């Protein structure tokens, strides 16, 4: 009796899917956090991440496997944000970044609270709210560096600006954020001080 070939029980391995799951989908949390700070809105952040993942999956063959998937995905996310969301959800900002004076909170608190203990009393939501008030160019730089721990070089690549620009934006973004948090801490009575 002729033997029928045994059916192949294991499904074909979808290599594209496997590598995408391994290298791209693992960064979903990062993409969501950055999207949320860019859009300031959970529903828009969802859409932006979804859009980014679709674009990334379509372009997956162009991504050189094993390089920096996180930076590659964030570049796609930022382009999608600029092209499709920024115009829709935020009025173009007309902030003169150079006019924002650097302000050192440390010099205000060094006598009363040089250890910065007042920071500990500020809750997550208040910090996120203060970040959302930063000018967009400062906000995106600060989030990529201070929340996601990316290097100046990586950030420069994603934002398509020179490393020196990343450095100066980060410096001013941090000082501005400190000043906002300090003002809040004074207002709440966490520290005596005088409003910045």
């Amino acid at each position, binding site marked *: 009796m002729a033997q029928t070939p045994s059916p192949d029980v294991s499904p074909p391995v979808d290599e594209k*899917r496997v590598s995408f799951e391994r290298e791209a989908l693992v960064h*979903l949390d990062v993409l*969501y956090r950055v999207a949320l700070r860019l859009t300031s809105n959970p529903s828009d952040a969802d859409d932006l991440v*979804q859009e980014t*993942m679709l674009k990334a*999956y379509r372009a997956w063959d162009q991504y050189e496997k094993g390089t920096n998937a996180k930076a590659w995905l964030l570049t796609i996310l930022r382009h999608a944000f600029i092209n499709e969301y920024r115009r829709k959800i935020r009025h173009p900002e007309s902030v003169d970044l150079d006019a924002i004076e650097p302000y050192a909170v*440390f010099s205000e608190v060094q006598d009363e609270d040089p250890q910065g203990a007042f920071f500990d009393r500020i809750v997550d939501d208040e910090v996120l709210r203060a970040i959302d008030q930063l000018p967009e160019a400062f906000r995106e730089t600060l989030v990529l560096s201070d*929340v996601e721990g990316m290097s100046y070089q990586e950030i420069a690549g994603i934002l398509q600006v020179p490393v020196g620009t990343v450095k100066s934006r980060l410096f001013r973004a*941090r000082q501005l954020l400190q000043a906002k948090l300090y003002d809040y801490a004074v207002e709440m009575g966490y520290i005596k001080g005088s409003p910045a």
Partner: protein
Amino acid sequence: MNCRECVEHLYEFLDRELTPELERELREHLEDCPPCGEQFDFEELFLKFLRARCRAQGAPAELKRRVLRELFGE
């Protein structure tokens, strides 16, 4: 390195983005200058605080499901 230059490069130092040469100069300055040392501690604490306050948030489970559904029809 003087105090002004030290404060100017403090964040780059904390971010490990200084050249080895500048990093050495800054370290030497911090050892000899208690006020700059205090500011270093303050800025270091601020960056740790920031990271701790912002990292808790992850993508909602529903978004993960939505992405998988859209990509792979699941």
